[in-house]
Each structure stands twice: as C-alpha cells, then as structure tokens.
C-alpha cells in the first residue's frame, strides 16, 4: 500500500462538472467511505483533451502542465489523482513530453512565464488514476473488510477504454510485472470489483475504442463501435458494464440510445461507474452516488438483484 495515496491533490476536470457529475460525486463518496482524502486543485483548467491536442499538441502540454504546476508548486502535493481517462492520459503525456522533449519544455516555460506562474518541472509530481488511488491506497484486503453490501450475483464487464493504457510509453509504471497494471489486459478495476463481491465476466473488449473522439462529428462510426462493445458484453453474460471514464461512460449511454433509435438495435446491458458500484458495496446510498443521473437505469437492475 502507498501511504501517500491516502491524501492526494484532486483534478476532476471539465467532464466531471458536466455529464460526469455522477462520477465526481461517487468518487468523492467512495473516498470518504474508505478514509481517502482529496484536496481539489485550485483554479484548475481544462487538460486540453483530445480536441486541443488536435489543434496544437504543445498547447495541450501547456494546459496540463499548468494544472500540475499548481498541484506541485502551490499545493506542494506529491500526487495528483484524475478520475477521467482523458485528464489522466494528458497529465501523463505532459509528464513524458516534459521529461523527453526539449521543445515542449521550452514552450511550457515560455507560456508559464507569460501566464505568470512557475513552470511545471518533470519528475516533481506523480499522476495517478482513481483506480490506482483505491487499489494502492486501500487495496483489496481492506476493501473486502469494509464491504457491507456485497455485489454478489452481479455480472460485470470491466471496460477501460483507450486512454488508460495507450500509448504505452506514457505509462512507464505499467507492465512492470506482478502487482502492476497491464496495458494489454488491464485488471485494476476487475480486482476492486471482485473484492466488492462482483462476478467479473471474461470480456475481450476491455480496451476497445468507443469512438469517443467522433461521438458527435461521426456519430455513425461511434454507434457501430459502441454497439459492438455492448453486444460483446451481453454475449459474455454481463448485466453491467463498469466504466472508469466520463467520455466512455456517456458515449456508451448515448450510443446505446442512438443504436436503438437510429438502427433499431436494442441492448439492455447497463452502464455504471466503477465508483458507483464500489460505493453501493460500501453501503453508500445510490442517490449519493448519482445512480439516478445515469441514462441506463442501473438502479432497477440493482434492485432486481437485491443489491440496492
């Protein structure tokens, strides 16, 4: 277990103030239930997401570095936690670029100087995902002891998406043998939900793409990609797809509806954030976890299974 994960700087990001509101709420609720503390980064800005990266990758690096500069230089934090795959990925990417690319360093120093704050220096902050935070801050054994409402009987397909594991060079701590995360077959979410009593199904599309980049600009492609994921989860016997990214989560939900309306393809698997599932196992009320904010009706399923 890592002691310094028990109090971390928290970077929710834009999506968690919008469509991912329930992910924000459930992350905080699970942290509270497990005795993990979060200090939100002051005056944080957008990490740059994929959109700014497409316009100019160096601006994305600067935007992410500003968040890291505030966490490291002003808040004196050692660890920053981002629950959103996009934010997590971009902070990791900025860390990598600043450590390896002199041009990125020069641009960040220049823009930070003009913006009036200290530039972020590579190696001063550790960026982690909400999965790392719970897996290494608390661990399965303690989690098991704290489960009050086992997810027994719930069949879960764990969906990690693209940004959590790819490209591998920005995640030097992954693929380092037993106990570390795998980029080809990630398992941290599986481990946590298994500790909470859920039955993980063998799901081959853990890191498949939901087409989130073009969810509105090329909706037909996104719908086809999502439908493939939903069908594979159902074929694997899953009741629920557990998610760990607000873009993936809302993409799966949106295109589940779109597949039904536009293609006439109905699927019934429900989407829940892994933090919502953990929260329920820890005895937090579904309302506090924002389960009613999800588009797919997870609550009805949990009631049916006698879990909520």
């Amino acid at each position, binding site marked *: 277990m890592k002691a310094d994960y028990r109090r971390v700087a928290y970077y929710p990001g834009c999506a968690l*103030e919008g469509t991912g509101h329930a992910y924000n709420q459930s992350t905080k609720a699970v942290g509270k239930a497990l005795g993990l503390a979060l200090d939100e980064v002051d005056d944080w800005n957008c990490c740059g997401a994929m959109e700014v990266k*497409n*316009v100019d990758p160096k601006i994305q690096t600067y935007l992410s570095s500003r968040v890291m500069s505030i966490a490291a230089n002003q808040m004196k934090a050692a660890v920053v936690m981002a629950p959103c795959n996009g934010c997590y990925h971009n902070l990791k990417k900025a860390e990598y670029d600043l450590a390896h690319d002199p041009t990125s360093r020069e641009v960040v120093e220049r823009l930070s100087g003009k913006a*009036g704050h200290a530039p972020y220096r590579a190696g001063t902050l550790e960026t982690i995902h909400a999965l790392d935070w719970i897996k290494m801050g608390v661990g399965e054994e303690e989690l098991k002891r704290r489960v009050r409402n086992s997810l027994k009987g719930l069949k879960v397909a764990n969906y990690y998406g693209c940004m959590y594991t*790819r490209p591998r060079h920005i995640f030097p701590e992954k693929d380092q043998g037993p106990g570390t995360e795998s980029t080809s077959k990630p398992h941290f979410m599986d481990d946590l939900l298994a500790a909470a009593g859920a039955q993980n199904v063998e799901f081959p599309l853990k890191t498949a793409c939901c087409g989130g980049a073009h969810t509105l600009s090329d909706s037909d*492609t996104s719908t086809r990609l999502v439908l493939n994921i939903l069908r594979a989860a159902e074929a694997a016997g899953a009741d629920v797809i557990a998610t760990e990214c607000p873009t993936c989560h809302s993409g799966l939900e949106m295109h589940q509806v779109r597949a039904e309306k536009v293609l006439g393809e109905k699927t019934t698997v429900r989407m829940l954030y892994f933090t919502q599932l953990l929260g329920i196992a820890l005895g937090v009320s579904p309302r506090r976890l924002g389960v009613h904010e999800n588009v797919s009706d997870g609550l009805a399923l949990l009631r049916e299974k006698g879990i909520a």
Partner: protein
Amino acid sequence: MPIHEKTLIRPENLRTHDKLVVDGVDVSGHWSTFIESRVVRDYNEALQDEIAALPGGEHIHRCWQCGSCTNSCTVNAINPDFNPRYWIYLIRMGMESELLRDKDIIWQCVSCNKCTYACPRDVFPEGVMKATAHWLELKGHTPKSKSTIFDQVFTEQVVATGKIEEGRVIRDFFARTGQPLLQDWLVEMAKRVARRLPFKQGIAFALAALFRPRTRGWAKARAAIAEYVQEQEAHRRKALGLAARAEHEVGDGA
C-alpha cells in the same frame, strides 16, 4: 463466373474486348481481361516534408511498412478502405493523387492509439493521420471536417475561459455545422434521464448550463496561448507554401 483477382483491380482499369486478335490468338471476352498500365507522373517530392512539418507527422520517415498500424486499426475493422499503412506509403513516395482518392475518410481516425501501441518504429501513426487530415484542409483539398470544427469550438472555449461547458460545446458545434440540436436520439436520452432526476437537481443542472465555468486568473494564460496559436499557424502555412492569413483559425468565433 466472377474472377476473384479482378476485384483487386479498380474497375476503371479493367479492359475487355469484344473482338481482339493478337498474333493470331483470339483474346476477346471475359477470360482475357487486360489491366490498363498505370503511369504516375505527378510525384509531389515535398509531400513527406509537408506532412512532417505538421504536428503529429514528425516521425513519418521512420516507417518501414510492416502494416501493424492497419492491422490494429479500429476504423479499418469497419471500413477496409481506411488504411494508414498505405497512406504513409503514398506520402513517403509523394503519390499525392493516389492519396487524394481517400481524402474524405482520413479525418475519421478515432485516435484510439492502437496503431501507436503496435508500431515497432515509433512512427506515431495516430499523429500522422491528424497531420494528413490537417494537410488536406490547409491545402484546400477538403472542407473542414466536422471533427475539425468540433476541435475548434472546443479549443476556443478552453482558450477563452480555461474550461469547457459540455452543453455549450454541443450547442455551438451543432449551430456551426448547421445541424438541428434536437436530434431525436438526444431528445430520447434527455427524456430518460429527466424521468428519474429529482426536480431540484434538474433546476441545478439547467442553471449550471447558463453560467459559464471559468478558471480564475486566466487572462494572462489566454493571451499567451492565443499568441502562440497564431505564431504556430503562420509557421505551418509557411512550411506548406501557403499565403499568410489575416486572422487566425482558433478564436474566429470566440
């Protein structure tokens, strides 16, 4: 009976003759199909350098054509014409007119980075796809794709306020691409959520959409980024041999 090999040749390059005798041998009809010989006259020797001058395209020269990118590609699995390996080949050979045959689908890369993960040469094919899509737009071969418009709407909001508000991004995107906001599937989705959302929370969400989230103390960062965007854009247009533009791309509608 269909001949499989024929499907590998573009139909416009297939030649069959009703009556043709060559050296006393009758080569008429279906079984004696000829292929029009191809001659490429219009090599663009600057093509690889131009792609390499755009963000993401820097490492295209490393490619040794193993095809791992196309093999792992998410979009290729649903559209076999989407072929990053082939496009990289065409760019490196300078075969511009061949590349332009696929100009309307290159922007469809979903940035899943499976190619980048698989590439043994660190070409970063995902970046090459973005660079190529930008090149097509900058050179005027294609109009701005919906994806580029989305990126710009998004980036303008980030530069202006430090953050985005998703509802506003969606509204602006639909307005700028001339699509109705009330798509029936979006309406259906809103209905499903509204059914279960307590009244008070619905009001809170509606209010949140009215107030733009902002990062405090953003003004200096905004100015610094806007200046950098402008500088970079001028730099790229120069690398592609294009005339300088009076106003810059991002910020047009902010």
